[in-house]
């Protein structure tokens, strides 16, 4: 049972990190455009001959 004393705080910490990361992702607009990235892959943007 003692392992819980470590594991639970660690899981809470990871939870906090995940939340912060998610908030950052939403705020920085990572989810704003979910439609064009898949199309962008198909159009070749390289100017190389």
């Amino acid at each position: 049972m003692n392992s819980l004393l470590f594991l639970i705080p660690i899981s809470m910490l990871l939870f906090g990190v995940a939340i912060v990361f998610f908030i950052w992702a939403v705020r920085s607009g990572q989810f704003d455009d979910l439609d064009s990235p898949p199309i962008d892959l198909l159009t070749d943007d390289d100017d190389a001959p």
Partner: protein
Amino acid sequence: MAPADGQIDLRDCRHCGEPRREGAPPGYCCQGCAAAAAWIDGSGLGAYYRLREGPAPRVEAQADLSAWDRADLQAAWVEAVGAGRRATLAVDGMHCAACAWLIDKALRREAGVLEVRANVLTARVRIDYDPAAVPLSVLVRRIAALGYRPSLPGSPAREAQRRRDRRSMLLRLGIAGLGTMQAMMFSEALYLDTTGSMPIATRDAFRWITALLSAPVVFYAGAPFLHGFWREMQLRSPGMDTLIGSSVLMAWGGSVIETVRDGPQVWFDAAVMFVFFMLIARHFERRARHASASRIDALAGAQPALAWREREGRLEQVPTSELAVGDRLHLHAGQTLPADGLLLDDAADLDEALLTGESRPRRRQPGDLLLAGSVLRSGEVRLQVAAVGAATVLSTMVRRVEAAQQARPPLLDWAEALSRQAVLATLVLAVLVGGWWLVVDPPQAFPIVLAVLVVTCPCALALAVPTALARANGLLAERGALVLSGEALHRLSSIDTVVFDKTGTLTRGQPTLISTITYAGLDAESARRHAVALEAGSHHPLARAFGHGPCPPVEARRSVAGQGIEGRIEGRLWRLGQAGFAVPGQADDDGVWLACEGRAVARFEIDDPIREDAAAVVAALARHHEVHLLSGDAAPRVAAMAALLGLPAAQVQSRCTPEGKCAAIAALQARGRKVLMVGDGINDAAALAAADVSVAMANGAPLALRQADVVLSGERLAGVSELLGIAVAAQRTIRQNLGWSIGYNALALPVAAIGAMSPGWAALGMAASSLLVSANAWRLRSPP
């Protein structure tokens, strides 16, 4: 496209495909196109001409674009991102991927451009640039120099609001998801302790941790429900939010109380799952509603953000918000008026459909007050601004557009009303059941009431319709069909008759002049110029066949719907149109006749190529539907088309006036048929309105796009049969979903009421039922 008789030189412009003009460089229609093409070739982007699917928009004379650099305009439309700034422009004229490719490449070549994203579907170009290296106006000029027409999208406040809403919804959803997973983990541990062997201290610790983890889910992610609960309480009209809010608060608050007083059970899991799944339901519903809104904004160009102002003899482009009473504005055909103003020039035809609902253009005389939001149908006019901003009728229009976008499908309303009834029934039931158990077995009363509340919550019912609609709209959007009216999908499923317009619908709507025969000594080129003069500003698809160029002035121009156009040139009455109209007594053929004072001057042969997939689509539709063809063209050409499509003569009508098309549709409806009308809206706006469901081709008139139930973008006619297939499939899915959710609630209720189900299991069952309904919606596919 040289004419057979070789009399006129119609060498088309390599860039925009329009005929050459006087004094233009060889191979191009004007200096603008020549410069654009030279730049494209010089920049190594010549591949554009190979990649593109149609001609480019003609390059207009360059105007003063310095307004784009104004700080006041940028403050509203340009946002700071990282080191640079981001501007989102609505760009008209992008038709295919090659256009997006060209704009993307062209902008990336400018110094100071960090990132470009051109989206053909939404008609938006997003530019991230370094304002120190390049002013926005230079980038806008680059786009304009290629022939595209950049403008500012809708209201920036609305776009920003939409983005904020989307982001906060996502945040709530994500936090609910993460929090629910964590809280469930600890709840699970508590559940698995079936023998009660867990030490009390550990159990309490787990309970407190769960309480902590579920708090953000309940109070942050669940805030919309709690707000709704509060609002519904104030209005004393309990709805879904009352049920959700009260169940969630009861479950969470009850659990905290139980934790404090060391009770036998907690229900944090029920609270968090409830919030999470209801948020998913809301998310789907919102997506269904907003999916097409931004694309429609771009298609219809609802609100002009910039206007051309005349000042000291020069034209400048200014934001609409800058306009002041007394300013002089320039407008050309197809533009929406940005402000109310007095007409300074000759009489003009204005389309005020958005304001009055009247689809026929209205003739306004010099000195008349023109209303913002109306669309100039022909020519170029100047007006003196009389009212701006909120004082105009335009602001009313904006509110109307917003109201239309907010309007919910009636089926959703029905499902919601049903859920509301269910909510009331549930609340009453919960009180009754609670009262009974309080008498029989008081400690059991609270969990049983909670279980009843959760299990009977019409979540699956609330999800049943929005998920299916969202899925169907998504499928349709992928195929280039935008559903604008909420009722359309529902009504589409009962359609049994499809009526096609010919020009611009079954054909490409790109008529070309094949040959000219002249009669009265006039040469072919001047005959064409007279035709251009008469058709100037006309939205009839045939007008485009004559091209552009210098032409004599026309007075008292008048168009006779479905027949032709007439006007006075140098005092004489000229008519252009079908044989019987232009030259009385002349037998109708499929040519377009030009006549002066009733004497034939020229006969133009115009052809419009059929869409490649027309025959296949009509054949596929004819298997399950009655297909009709209505056309304003002459009988021989329509018959030829009908033969090509395999339609029986009884289902084909030629020489239909707009009224004729309406009458034909009314006759079908009188026979009890449910009619789907497919048109481009140029000569069939009334028919589109008369039909049970209307589909407009996106290359048609902007006004038809606003009125149509469904807009088909792209060149594919196959969208029509896919639309019908998906509508039927969606209707079936909705029926299945409603059946399941109502059945499940009815079955689970007695089980919960007799105390055979704990709140946790009730929440799990509710979640499973909701997931089943969503999964069923995602199963929805376009029938092969």
